[in-house]
């Protein structure tokens, strides 16, 4: 996926003939299963992850494959299981802690920010915390304000943590495997609306480095940076832009921390225009960082200000009549891009 010939375009959801196609959810499961088979120190803990295979059914089958010692249903104790993750990681295990909805990560902040993220540093490099916290992001499920947030910016802010937010099944598998192998606490955000999304995933084993952006589509006139499911919104927008003669390059950072600033800046230097798209709240979030990085690094190349599109700065409303307004749409991306290129 990561090397595309100049000028070609390929949606992450469209695959070459003969390639195997699985869903995003299957890709996550496959990554976890492969890693658990490879390394006995990996275990998974969370609410309804074992018998029920998670509320999103993403983990179905793992309990059968690895047994109840390694796939553990926990009480509804987010802080507690995050703490268990940290303690187990420090003492030789590689826990995967499952936090059902990203909104509930508010309950694990102390364990993540003050413990997991700082243990390696505070111990002068002696202890390490090879732990994955996987959780979700994304609105539009009519789940209202406490089940729809995209809180990845909070974690991206904290040194000592890494943050991955895959958009495609291919990226999901490759990044999850790397996250599990990483010796640091890595938070993986999965858009719950993507679990059924299909895409090509090779049978052969592979991993993707954390910190390497992917050019999801090449283009000449404007750089669109998009994360997680916003990649699909951006692709749709790119198609529409294409039809009016604007060629958009689409870059998916894939991890916000580490952030592949080089790829972002180079693209903006090439296209002279940039737009950043992320489903987190717009204010003090991911778009601010990325736009700043580009506005700084490509300053002398830019023909227009870097624009940012995020979730509307409101709690996510329940009513369908309102919820969809809070999420960036491809039309809005097109409008913004047109204005920049106009």
């Amino acid at each position, binding site marked *: 996926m990561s090397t595309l010939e100049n000028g070609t375009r390929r949606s992450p959801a469209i695959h070459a003939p003969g390639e195997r196609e699985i869903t995003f959810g299957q890709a996550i499961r496959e990554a976890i299963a492969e890693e658990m088979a490879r390394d006995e120190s990996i275990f998974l803990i969370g609410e309804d992850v074992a018998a029920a295979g998670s*509320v999103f059914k993403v983990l179905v089958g793992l309990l059968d494959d690895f047994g109840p010692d390694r796939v553990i249903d926990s009480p509804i104790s987010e802080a507690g299981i995050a703490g268990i993750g940290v303690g187990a990681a420090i003492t030789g295990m590689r826990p995967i802690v499952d936090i059902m909805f990203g909104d509930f990560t508010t309950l694990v902040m102390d364990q993540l920010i003050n413990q997991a993220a700082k243990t390696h540093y505070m111990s002068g490099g002696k202890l390490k915390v090879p732990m994955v916290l996987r959780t979700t992001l994304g609105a539009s499920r009519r789940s209202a304000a406490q089940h729809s947030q995209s809180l990845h910016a909070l974690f991206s802010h904290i040194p000592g943590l890494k943050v991955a937010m895959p958009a495609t099944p291919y990226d999901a598998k490759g990044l999850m495997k790397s996250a599990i192998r990483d010796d640091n606490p890595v938070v993986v955000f999965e858009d719950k609306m993507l679990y059924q999304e299909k895409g090509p995933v090779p049978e052969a084993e592979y991993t993707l480095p954390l910190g390497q952006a992917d050019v999801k589509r090449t283009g000449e006139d404007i750089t669109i940076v998009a994360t997680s499911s916003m990649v699909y919104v951006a692709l749709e927008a790119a198609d529409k832009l294409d039809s009016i003669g604007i060629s958009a390059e689409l870059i998916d950072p894939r991890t916000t921390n580490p952030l592949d600033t080089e790829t972002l800046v180079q693209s903006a230097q090439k296209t002279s225009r940039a737009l950043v798209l992320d489903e987190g709240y717009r204010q003090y979030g991911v778009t601010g960082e990325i736009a700043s990085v580009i506005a700084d690094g490509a300053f002398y190349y830019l023909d227009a200000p870097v624009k940012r599109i995020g979730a509307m700065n409101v709690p996510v409303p329940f009513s369908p009549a309102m919820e969809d307004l809070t999420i960036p749409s491809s039309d809005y991306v097109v409008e913004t891009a047109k204005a920049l290129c106009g």
Partner: protein
Amino acid sequence: MSEKKENMPNEPGLDAEHWLQAYEQMVKIRTFEETANELYTSARMPGITHLYIGEEAIAVGICEALRQDDYITSTHRGHGHCLAKGAALDKMFAELLGKEAGYCRGKGGSMHIADQETGNLGANGIVGGSAGIATGAGMSIKLRGTDQVAVCFFGDGALGQGLLYESMNMAQLWKLPVIYVCENNQYGEYTHNSKAAAGSMVGRASGFGVHAQAIDGQDIRTVHATARLLIDRARKGGGPAFLVCNTYRFHGHHVGDIDRPYRTREEEAEWAKRDPLKLLEDWLAKSQHVEADVFQRIQQDVKTAVDEAVDFALDASFPNESEVDRHVYA
């Protein structure tokens, strides 16, 4: 975990009329929930919702012992609490459908219905998330010097949340008028509480010095009598209490949880025998000689009211687009 101390407190000496009113409230919740389920299955309701069917005796038994100016906090499985505390059917349905006429103008939805007029401080999508809020309401009552009481409803799953213990500790330290009601319906989502809660539920609260007891949550007379005592005690400055009501949700965790592979049909059948509506009906018929047609009339009246409310909600309009960024700040 088996702590069914089914001690029946002194009969508060209520007459059949009172119990028929309670019966009507339970029927209202039951019918509301069945209708909500239909709205879901017929794809007329956005999202999902968690049904209270089977647990009606708890909300009604307790809320009937509360005044309008008393507070409750509720949960994701909150329709029963809202209705029992006095919410109107039409605004409830409107909220479930995301309409502007709903309790929260469509912004909250099923999981966030709040209504300050009936003292409902809000349902909550965060398991255990309202333990602090209810305790803060208790603090507010104490500081304002009123004799209100706050009831915190939560499920057995919330026993996993540390906030509950932090809250109970402070409520006991400061003798706040808060009743923590654990609706022990045996499961948190798809996990039985024997796999989630070690030790004794009542023991967890009594360790903090909080008066704690467990009762049959299917028998509204037990629930109500116990609630009266505890609420009265709290009102008089006797401090908080913790009440485990043993119960069962007759449906799945949410409307989409149809197969329920995590529990047996036999277990469900056992609990179905202890349907709280049925139990009250039986008692009223046997001990109070209430005729069968009385129940039927109540059911029919409720059905009519619910149907009207649904029609109202279905016809009601969605909020205006301009509504979306209102009420972020007061």
